[in-house]
């Protein structure tokens, strides 16, 4: 008989907040892993740190800064504040179908069925009053998409906390960088007013040093994926999403070091993540299938098909070259915002999306292309023919287009997705 998740039932009935639930779950998993398989505990260490810090920030006298889209998060750390990247909520709860469904349904009752379910969960949890906290400020940018630009102002009004916005430019050029630098300076002023203290440059440098280290590590981990066979399972690509909120969090460093170590060890042992041999090196052109992560293991096991990278999730490492030159660092911060996962491909002209795909195709030995398209991401769906034609012409590789909901598992089961990809691999892809 299946074990009943009584804590989940409490979330469903509204007794328990999402934050307490997720943080508690992570702590429970860590305790269990420490007992049964201590070598794997590093996977949960990060999650415990991530959610524990969010849950306990205000109790520990830290201001909690909720944020969405590309923001200069390293600055939030420098002010001794705790960032809460809101996308972490739907991404963490996606495998918990019932919980996500509850929040999706609550949001749809108030807004719009076609809205991206990432935003639906974020807004639904607020409509249900189940964050269990009210941030001290909510800061968000005008992208990634139309959905977030609708959801965030509503959420900001509901929370009633101070708000700060950044507008991401349409083009990624020098003028765009200057535009973001100016807005970042305005953000620093906002944070100074919010916290009542000036930006401490020593803390700023410390924050950037951590960010440099994590960026360096995530770059090396990505490099491991260029290796054939790929040493790291597709499922571990979830790490990229953590970087959006935690690049300057010291808790990221041991996690990434361990992941790197594991990958290097696999290569040294001449082993790959596909236990029965690697055949298909897949590039997913959009996001991770957060609801059905088990599909990644299934495809690796049954077809030797491994997701080498997801194009919108790809984390582009950017390093602060001269920490003593803050003006220069502000420019790097601007580039980081433009290069953030999803933003780099999905926002702005489609040429940037093609550039990202070119980089991944040229460097990761890809032989299979799949547009695993989240239905809520309409503007990326509106570029599918451009992208698939581009890949066909440049690399002579066809692209499978398959619609999924990355967050709401009711849309399509793992089995449906696996079968569709499996059939494509065996009938269309010629290697």
């Amino acid at each position, binding site marked *: 008989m299946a074990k009943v998740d009584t804590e989940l039932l409490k979330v469903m009935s509204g007794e328990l907040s999402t934050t307490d639930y997720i943080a508690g779950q992570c702590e429970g998993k860590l305790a269990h892993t420490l007992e049964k398989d201590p070598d794997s505990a590093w996977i949960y260490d990060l999650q415990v740190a991530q959610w524990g810090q969010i849950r306990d920030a205000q109790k520990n006298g830290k201001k909690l800064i909720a944020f969405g889209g590309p923001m200069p998060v390293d600055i939030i750390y420098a002010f001794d504040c705790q960032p809460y990247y809101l996308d972490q909520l739907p991404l963490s709860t996606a495998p918990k179908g019932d919980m996500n469904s509850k929040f999706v349904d609550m949001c749809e009752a108030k807004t719009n069925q076609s809205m991206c379910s990432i935003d639906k969960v974020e807004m639904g949890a607020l409509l249900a009053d189940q964050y269990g906290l009210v941030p001290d400020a909510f800061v968000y940018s005008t992208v990634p998409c139309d959905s977030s630009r609708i959801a965030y102002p509503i959420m900001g009004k509901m929370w009633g906390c101070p708000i700060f916005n950044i507008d991401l430019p349409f083009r990624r050029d020098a003028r765009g960088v200057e535009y973001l630098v100016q807005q970042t300076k305005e953000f620093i002023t906002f944070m100074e007013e919010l916290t009542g203290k000036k930006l401490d440059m020593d803390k700023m440098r410390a924050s950037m040093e951590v960010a440099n280290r994590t960026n360096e590590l995530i770059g090396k981990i990505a490099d491991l994926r260029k290796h054939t066979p790929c040493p790291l399972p597709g499922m571990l690509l979830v790490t990229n999403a953590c970087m959006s909120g935690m690049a300057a969090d010291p808790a990221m460093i041991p996690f990434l070091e361990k992941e790197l170590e594991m990958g290097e060890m696999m290569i040294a042992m001449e082993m790959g993540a596909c236990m029965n041999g690697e055949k298909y090196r897949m590039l997913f052109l959009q996001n991770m299938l957060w609801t059905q992560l088990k599909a990644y293991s299934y495809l690796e096991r049954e077809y030797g098909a491994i997701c080498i990278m997801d194009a919108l999730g790809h984390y582009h490492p950017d390093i602060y070259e001269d920490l003593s030159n803050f003006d220069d660092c502000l420019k790097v911060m601007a580039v980081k915002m433009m290069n953030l996962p999803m933003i780099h491909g999905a926002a702005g002209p489609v040429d940037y999306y093609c550039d990202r795909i070119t980089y991944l195709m040229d460097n990761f030995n890809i032989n299979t292309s799949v547009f695993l398209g989240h239905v809520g991401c*309409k503007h990326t769906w509106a570029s599918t023919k451009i992208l698939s034609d581009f890949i066909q012409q440049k690399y002579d590789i066809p692209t499978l287009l398959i619609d999924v909901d990355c967050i709401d598992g009711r849309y399509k089961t793992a089995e449906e997705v696996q079968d569709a990809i499996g059939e494509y691999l065996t009938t269309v892809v010629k290697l």
Partner: protein
Amino acid sequence: MNYQKLFESNISKDEISAWRAQGKKALGVVCCHVPQELLHAAGVLPVRLRATGCEDYSEAEVWMSSFSCSFAKSILQFLIDNVYDLDGFVASDGCMQAARIYDNWKACSKKSGKEQTIIEIGAPRMNSATTRAYYKEELKILVEALEKLTGNKVTDEKLLHSVETYNEARGLVKKVLELQKAEHPVITGAEAMKIMLASTNMPVEEYIELLKAFLADVPNRTPVSGFRTRLMVIGSALDDPRYIEAIENKGGLVVADTLCLGSMTFGDELKADKADILGSIADYYLTRIVCPRMIDNRPQLHNLIVNRATEYKVDGLLYVKMQNCECWGGENTYLEPALKDAGVPILYLEREEKLANIGQLEIRAEAFIEMIEKEV
């Protein structure tokens, strides 16, 4: 002067072809965040792109998928079908679907060997001194591109003249819209929509003359009677007067709107600072309220809608959202209580660009009209 042309809402390339036959350029305009004054000052005919009457956008759907907004797809379809006879278009990243018209037509026209002048300007999605300055620079880039295309220099004098010309059109349209405040207006909602859509199809000077002729004839027009309720329409891009006619046929007279192809296109007068005309244009276009694409204009947008509903004494409001339009997907959360406080009931409708399910629309509209009629 015969002003019947104001009521011809179907898209015709004749006017554009005639313009181009004089050796002048005509450019489409995607979204209302492209200041048409700039094109006008460069001697270019700006043609605000719409897709009225597009009943089959299957080819565009191949490019943009079934998950996209059908208004955007229909515009792409009309570009593919050469419904407009243009030299190209200028787009802004109004919403992300509008931005994809740019990407897809660029790729599609290249593939079919019909490459055109396609210009994209970035229109910030928030309003501050920093974003307005950035937008002004974008407009400078547009001016340079237009000068290169036409060989015409865009001077401050020309810009000021264009601003004044468009202000005249704004003022005249305002007078047309004022007519709808009357207990028995002399135009229906569908007619008002046709008048506003007509602006997209002809040079602004001609439009002004037609508006003047129409307004001069107002005393001779017969007031509309026999309607049961006064309605207002808000929501996504709506450019099909037949949609409004279907509602009006059931007794609901549409007397006001906040549509981007309707009254919001025109807005208030643009007050130009002669020392910085381009800056004034940038300020105007980022500050004026049009749609929820901006991240920071919701309270103003909601106030505008509620005030307009009150000002035009509407009995009910139709919130018409295009399927897959995210921008208009969430406004009800705060707008609904605000309208409720003002005593304005709402009917939510979802539509596609092609006029599908018109029977269902009529039934729902009629039921709504019956419901609010009792409350009048």
